[in-house]
């Protein structure tokens, strides 16, 4: 960020009152925490509008696994990742970013969907006790990351939880490659976090009295590039067990998967991606029938899937070490009627029958 720009920003106080230069209708949206998404139209006949969102930065200590490991998180609205914002192509996003004085550090926001000004990062630098309002036009349909980008500390703020997703839907909704409209019954918003928690000399995770005190040790772990935890929604088990996602056979879900920092490869065990925008941008035709898709660090991808069989599905980062050992696993409980045409257990596990009457050694026969 240039010094002149910084000076400009500092001398122009953020106005609480909304700008009305656009003469467009306004809508205020209350955000909800992941894995859920605020109510929205999938396609709209209405013209462009100004959509107002508010993100409040919260620095706080959080527990990230069942062993009670703690870390200092920096968050938008208290969740990691921050909430998903949904607008339509051509809408204006009017974002209020609040940094309460209870925080200790300056923060800002870089929205990958926005054009210019370092994605907004150059214009939204707020100290504790300040707020700012940024407006930008959503010109490209797709799912996009947003994240904090304070000078000198960008990666630390990002891997401490300061990232989220903005979804810009085409005004006439999602379509397959041939122009046929696609719909979803619900959105699962999966935010993947790579976390780097320092350990003491005995191998135990350390705790700190403040976010600032955790900085130096955390940077040492980050620079080795191997996360101690790779999780969805900020902690191991955030989307499993009692927190498992739910769906019904016949329901179509749009799974939006974001990772602000590190590559990941979502896979739905027992299912597929019917339509996948691997790079997350809806002007590109979706790929069909994928088994695993690649979400580049610093991007979000979207996959549409209709459940066809009931049961428990695991949705994982298919680097299975990261899924099973580091935590990047979600479960989806799907109710409905079992379809024996798709799968049937013909013979349950049991003894291996002799290959032939008179054959003394079945192994020898098969060889």
């Amino acid at each position, binding site marked *: 960020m240039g010094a002149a720009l910084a000076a400009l920003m500092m001398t122009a106080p953020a106005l609480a009152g909304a700008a009305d230069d656009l003469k467009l209708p306004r809508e205020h949206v209350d955000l909800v925490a992941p894995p859920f998404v605020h109510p929205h139209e999938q396609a709209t006949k209405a013209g462009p509008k100004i959509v107002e969102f508010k993100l409040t930065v919260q620095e706080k200590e959080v527990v990230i696994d069942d062993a009670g490991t703690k870390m200092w998180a920096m968050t938008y609205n208290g969740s990691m990742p921050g909430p998903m914002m949904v607008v339509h192509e051509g809408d204006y996003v009017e974002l209020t970013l609040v940094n309460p004085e209870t925080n200790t550090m300056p923060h800002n926001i870089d929205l990958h969907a926005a054009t210019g000004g370092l994605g907004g990062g150059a214009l939204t630098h707020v100290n504790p006790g300040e707020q700012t309002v940024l407006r930008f036009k959503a010109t490209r349909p797709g799912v996009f990351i947003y994240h904090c980008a304070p000078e000198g500390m960008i990666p630390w703020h990002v891997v401490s939880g300061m990232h989220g997703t903005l979804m810009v839907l085409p005004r006439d909704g999602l379509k397959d490659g041939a122009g046929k409209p696609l719909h979803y019954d619900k959105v699962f918003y999966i935010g993947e976090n790579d976390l780097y928690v320092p350990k003491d000399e*005995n191998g135990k995770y350390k705790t700190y009295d403040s976010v600032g005190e955790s900085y130096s040790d955390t940077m040492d772990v980050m620079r080795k590039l191997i996360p101690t935890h790779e999780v969805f929604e900020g902690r191991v088990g955030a989307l499993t067990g009692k927190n498992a996602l739910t769906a019904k056979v016949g329901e179509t879900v749009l799974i939006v998967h974001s990772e602000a920092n590190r590559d990941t490869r979502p896979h739905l065990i027992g299912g597929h991606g019917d339509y996948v925008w691997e790079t997350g941008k809806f002007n590109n035709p979706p790929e069909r029938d994928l088994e695993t898709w690649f979400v580049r660090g610093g991007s979000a991808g979207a996959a549409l899937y209709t459940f066809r*069989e009931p049961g*428990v599905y695991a949705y994982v980062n298919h680097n299975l070490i990261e899924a099973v050992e580091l935590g990047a696993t979600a479960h989806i*409980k799907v109710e409905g009627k079992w379809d024996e045409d798709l799968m049937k257990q013909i*013979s*349950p596990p049991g003894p291996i029958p002799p290959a032939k009457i008179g054959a003394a050694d079945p192994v020898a026969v098969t060889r």
Partner: protein
Amino acid sequence: MLLLMKVKTAMLAGALAAPVVAAALAPSPTHGLGGAIRLASTSFTYRAAGDFSRGGRPVEGPLRELRLPAGLLVMKRQVTVAEYGRCVDEGACPRVAVPSGTQNVPVVGVSWHDASAYAAWISHKTGVTYRLPTDEEWTFAAAEKARDEALPLIDPADPAQAWIARYEAESSRERPLATTPQPSGTFGTNSRGLEDLAGNVWEWTDSCFVRTSLDEKKETVTNVNCGVRVVEGAHRTYMTDFIRDPKSGGCAQGVPPTNLGFRLVVEPSRSAITSTVRSIAKLLRHT
């Protein structure tokens, strides 16, 4: 499986008069396990361990009324860090990660192999044959602390229903608040006087994983996998024998055992019997 168990426990049938054996097991200053308790055999309810199926569909294991053929001499508490450490020092047990300064807490992070090595070593040291309990023996000893987690009956034609029910049952398990091993007695004493059953340490048993098919009258064991053993504690589970640090994750759900440890039972060997007879003779002479 049941048959196997019976053969095993039949070997216990020679268990001797309680006070005498208990005396033979009194803690010795160098080695030997303190606090063994003799439990008189009474009947108890036991949910058979392993996978059971009827007509090719998974069903709960049958519930049985059992009675051990003889009383059971079992350690009051789990084997401690200090006790296991002596076996390590003598080169008979694999070294396991032990937090410093915690000698009188249960040793955890041990595999079935580690536990079995310890049983062999302590047996050699004391001349008393120790071993891991069978799952039946553990359940008997645990009494009200043994948890029967039968699932509701579900339409057998729909595998997903049973699957979701199991998932929900496993998801609803509480996690122990303390994850590090606690001093003996922390988790209370059961009605049989044994400490810390179903606390934050799960215990290895000697029972192998079995797959059984049930028919109208017949029960057929179709597979026995001794690479997987029954582990008991706040819930029953099955664990590959070389695992020291259990975890859940991936497609499975639920709370894995917080820690893996063990307690031993005594199987009277010939030498133990002989020495006990000698003790009896000695006692008789004194009286």
